């Protein structure tokens, strides 16, 4: 089990907390009276959300609402595709500096400000997989 000491301070500060709150609100809205839920969240590689912190924050919020919650996190690799020449590549093949990584962490679409198609140089590419946070499944009884 993850100790509170490791995450509590950070989780209360960083913006992962806001994303955890969004997931929690989504659960409250879709399953308003559920006391036991299972949430599967897909995390796109591009946004680089800290899994440990997100999971900790989500559990804390659910606990404070008296809901028993099983959290399943699935990482999804980020795939990019150029709309001009059709070339497909992986985010893993790209190197960014720390500042750029952080900017993309807050607003993933700004990747268009810092990246071009490696084949033709166009910025008109698409993030076809692995953008950000998505609730893949909420299940309850």
């Amino acid at each position, binding site marked *: 089990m993850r100790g509170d000491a490791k995450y509590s301070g950070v989780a209360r500060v960083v913006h992962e907390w806001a994303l955890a709150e969004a997931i929690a*609100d989504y659960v409250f809205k879709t399953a308003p009276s559920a006391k036991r839920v299972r949430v599967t969240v897909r995390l796109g590689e591009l946004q680089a959300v800290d899994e440990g912190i997100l999971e900790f924050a989500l559990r804390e919020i659910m606990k404070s609402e008296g809901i028993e919650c099983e959290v399943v996190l699935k990482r999804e690799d980020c795939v990019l595709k150029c709309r001009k020449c059709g070339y497909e590549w992986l985010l893993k093949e790209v190197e960014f500096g720390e500042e750029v990584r952080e*900017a993309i962490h*807050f607003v993933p679409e700004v990747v*268009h*400000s810092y990246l071009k198609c490696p084949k033709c140089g166009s910025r*008109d590419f698409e993030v076809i997989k692995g953008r950000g946070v998505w609730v893949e499944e909420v299940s309850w009884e």
Partner: protein
Amino acid sequence: MMVAQGDPRLAVIGRRLARVARVVPVMSSKGGVGKTLLSCLLALALSERGARVGLLDLDVTNPTAHVVLGADLSKFPEEDRGVVPPLIGGVKFMSVAYYSGENPLPLRGWEIDNVVREVLAVTIWGDLDFLVIDTPPGIGDEVLDVLSYFPKHEPLVVATPSPLTVTSVRRLLKLLTEAVKGELIRVVENMARDNSSIIADLARKFRVGFLGKVRFDEGVDRAVGDIDALRESRMYRDVSMIAEKLL
């Protein structure tokens, strides 16, 4: 067992705006009529009158409000269970430009929608009397997102006294009056040079409010980027009268 799936960001937007009393999107289907300058000056003028004000630059692919305010883009906004917009001239200011800088940000429609969802989901406004929103020209993604994602809003439509603007703004007013009560929609005439009543007449025809004229101020461009200088401008004095009427 029941299951569901979806975008969690939309679920939290209401919570983020829960303590925002009034949302004022500054809109115009016509480009270059002064939406950005007016949004910034209005936010400053409302704040000078004691209101707690936020300003959101929602011109996602071409943010410029930071230029008007002279905002420092070299640091990311602080985080505290979300993103906390820095105070600039007494106004809580949020923009995608903190993250994209002055680089090009070419985006397709669904990507713009994604940016708007992201920003609305993570920005912590706290208690505000007014959230002023600068929007891009046209009736595109950002404008539709404002109309759809904000539970309540009071559009402020900017028009200049030219026939082309009137044609363009008429379309926007038609759209807005279909969705929003007429008394919550207001029109401002910007860059007024004479006592033409073309914009006031347009507002009357659509049964929406007319808040008055902001005169053409040849000195205002020199004040851009300097809040103290902006506050000395004639345009700011005119916008202050508009702010009084909104309070």
